C-alpha cells in the first residue's frame, strides 16, 4: 500500500474507535450502558497500529480497557454495543460487558478485569502453539501498572525460558488509576526485560498510528522470525478519567498541559479534513450498531443459568 493509503486506512480505523467511544459517552447518562467503561480515547493508535500487523489467527489477550483492541482486531461492532448494553445479542449475551470483551473468531481471546491476569494465558497459548509447531504469534497487551504484579515477572521468565512466540505489549500511559509510574516503579523497564534476554523496543510516538504500525511491525516480525518473546512498550496518553465517561483534570493529580501537548500531535484532532471526510460513513455504521443493540432482547433466566 502507498503510505498515504496506509495513513488513511489507519486514520479511519482509529477514528472509528474514537467515535464509538464518544458514542458511549453520549449514551452513558441515559443508563443504557450500566457497567463501568474504561475508555481508550487517546490510546487508539496503539491498538490500530499493532493490529495492522497481526493475522486473523494471531491471538491477542487484553484487559478491561479493551474497546480499542477489540475493534482494531476486527471484533463486530453491533455485538459490541449489544454487549455493553447488557443484551442477549451481545458477543457474550451481556454477561461480559465492557470489561470482558472477547471474540475468538477474530483472535480476541478474552479480557480480565484483574490487572496482569491474562499475561500468563497468552504465554500458555503460545507454549502450546510452539509444541504444535503452529506458525502464529500471540500478543499480550497490558498497562504500565501491570508491570508491578509478580505474575508479570513470572511470565517473562517462563516465556524466555521456553522460547515461546509472544509479544509483550505494554501500553504505557504513565498512570494506574490516579497514580503515576514514578510513585510505583523503581525499575528501568528496558534493563529489566533485558535481564531475561528478551529484546526490548519502545515507541515514543504512540499518537501516530503510522509510526506505531511501522515500528511495531519490526517487533512483530521479530517474534515471527525468532519464535521467541519480544517486548514492546508504546507510550500513550489517556484523555479521559480512569473509568467512566468524564474527564478529571480538576482532580489535580495530573496536568492538563501534558494531555494538551499530546493532543496537538494527535492526527484525529489535527487532520480535520480527513476527519470530516470519514465522519458520515463511520457514524452511519455506529448508528446501525447502536440500533442493533437497542433492538436486541434482554438475556433471560435461561441465560443466567447457562455456561457455568
Amino acid at each position, binding site marked *: 500500500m502507498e503510505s498515504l493509503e496506509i495513513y488513511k486506512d489507519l486514520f479511519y480505523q482509529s477514528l472509528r474507535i474514537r467515535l464509538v467511544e464518544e458514542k458511549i459517552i453520549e449514551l*452513558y447518562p441515559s*443508563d443504557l*450502558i*450500566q*457497567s*463501568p*467503561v474504561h475508555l481508550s480515547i487517546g490510546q487508539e493508535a496503539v491498538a490500530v497500529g499493532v493490529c495492522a500487523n497481526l493475522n486473523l489467527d494471531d491471538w491477542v489477550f487484553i484487559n478491561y480497557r479493551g474497546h480499542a483492541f477489540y475493534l482494531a482486531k476486527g471484533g463486530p461492532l453491533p455485538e459490541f454495543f449489544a454487549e455493553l448494553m*447488557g*443484551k442477549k445479542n*451481545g458477543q457474550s*449475551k*451481556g*454477561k*461480559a*460487558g*465492557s*470489561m*470482558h470483551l472477547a471474540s475468538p473468531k477474530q483472535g480476541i481471546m478474552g479480557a*480480565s*478485569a*484483574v*490487572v*496482569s491476569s491474562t499475561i500468563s494465558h497468552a504465554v500458555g497459548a503460545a507454549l502450546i502453539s510452539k509444541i504444535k509447531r503452529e506458525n502464529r504469534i500471540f500478543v499480550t497487551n497490558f498497562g504500565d*501498572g*501491570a508491570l*508491578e*504484579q*509478580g505474575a508479570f515477572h513470572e511470565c517473562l521468565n517462563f516465556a524466555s525460558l521456553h522460547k515461546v512466540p509472544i509479544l509483550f505489549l505494554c501500553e504505557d500511559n504513565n498512570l*494506574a*488509576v*490516579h*497514580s503515576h509510574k514514578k*510513585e*510505583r*516503579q523503581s525499575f528501568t523497564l528496558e534493563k529489566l526485560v533485558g535481564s531475561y534476554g528478551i529484546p526490548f523496543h519502545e515507541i515514543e510516538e504512540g499518537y501516530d498510528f503510522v509510526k506505531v504500525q511501522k515500528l511495531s511491525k519490526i517487533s512483530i516480525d521479530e517474534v515471527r522470525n525468532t519464535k521467541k518473546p519480544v517486548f514492546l512498550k508504546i507510550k500513550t496518553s489517556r484523555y479521559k478519567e480512569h*473509568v*467512566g*465517561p468524564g474527564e478529571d483534570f480538576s*482532580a*489535580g*493529580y495530573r496536568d492538563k498541559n501534558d494531555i494538551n501537548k499530546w493532543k496537538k500531535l494527535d492526527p484525529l484532532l489535527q487532520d480535520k479534513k480527513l476527519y470530516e471526510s470519514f465522519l458520515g460513513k463511520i457514524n452511519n455504521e455506529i448508528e446501525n450498531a447502536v440500533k442493533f443493540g437497542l433492538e436486541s432482547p*434482554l*438475556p*433471560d*433466566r435461561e*441465560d*443466567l*443459568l447457562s*455456561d*457455568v
Partner: protein
Amino acid sequence: MSKTYKAALLEAMQEAMDNNPRSLIIGQGVTDFKGIFDTVKGFVDRYPDRVIETPLSEDSIAGICIGAALNGAYPINTHIRADFGLLIFNQLINLAAKYKYMFGGLFEIPCMYRMVIGRSWGQGAQHSQSLQSLMAHIPGLVVVMPADPKSIIESYRYSIQKYKGPVVMLEHRLLYELNFENDETKLSHPIFGSKLEIEGTDITIIATSVMVLEAKRAANHLKKNGISVELINLHSISHPDKKIICKSVEKTGKMLVIDTSWPAYGVCAEMNRIINEYKPSILKVPSNSMGMVSTPCPTAKALEEMYYPDVHDICKEVIKMVKKDGSEINLPKKISMTDFYKHFKGPF
C-alpha cells in the same frame, strides 16, 4: 443524629491515626483524591509517613503488612475489591492467620485487611465477589461484615486498639453512601458475635452485610401483613454468636439465612451446622438459604437483577415458609436494590 456508612469508616480511620500512633494505612489509591471512597481522603497530607501508596502488588503488600506488624505497626491494608484479595490468600491464610500459632505464641500479627465486597453496578464476575466464607473457614482469622456505622466504629476501634491478630473487614459497596439513623444497640463484643436487630416470633432471618438492610425492609413490610420476623445481623462471620442464633430459631422454629455470597459452603451452610449440632428438632420447617445464584456474576443489569435476591424475593420466601398460602399478602414491588439505594449512576 444520622451518619453514612462511609462517614463511619472515615471516623474509624481518623481515630486509628489519632489514637494509635502505630496505625499505618497502606494500599492502592490511599493517597489519591478519591481516598478509598472518601474513607482516607486527605490523610496523606496530615500523616505523610503513615499513609502509603503502593504498587500494584497485592501479594507482597500483604506480606509487608505482616512484617510491619512484627515491627510494631498496626497496618490497615485496603483492597478496593475483595476479588483482588484472592492475590493475598497465601499471605493471609498461610502466614498471617498462622503466625502466632505456628511459632507457639512467639509473635503476634495485629493488622487489618479492609476489602470492599459486593455488587454496585454492572461489575461482572471479577468485581463483585463476597469471599467471606473462604476466610471464615480458616482458624486464626477474624472476619467481620459490619452492616451499619455503629458496628464500624465499635469494631474498628476494638480491632485497632485491642485485638492482637489479623482482622478482615468486609465493607459492602452498596452501603457506603447510605445514611443510617443513630442506633442505640451495642455489640456485646465488637469483633466477635452477632446482633439481634429485630425481635419477632414467626421466623428467624440471619443476614450478613447489606442483606441485613434488605431483611429489615422485608421485616417492615411483613409486619404490616401480620408476620413477625426476628432478625439477626451475623456481624462476625468467623465468630458468630451461636447462643442468640439457637435461641431465636428455638423460639420461631424457622430459619432463613440471607448472605451476600453463594449458599453452598457459605454462611448459609454454617448456620445450619450450628443449629443441627445444637438441636435439629427446633426447626419446624425446612430451612432456607438466599444468596447469589450459583453462577459467576453476570454483567448485564437484567441478569444482575435476577442474580441478587432483594426485598421482594425475601418476602416471597418468608411467606412461603410461614404460611402455606400467602396469596392474600401483597409483595413489595421488585425494585432494583441499586436503584433503591440510588447512588449507582456513576461508573464504579
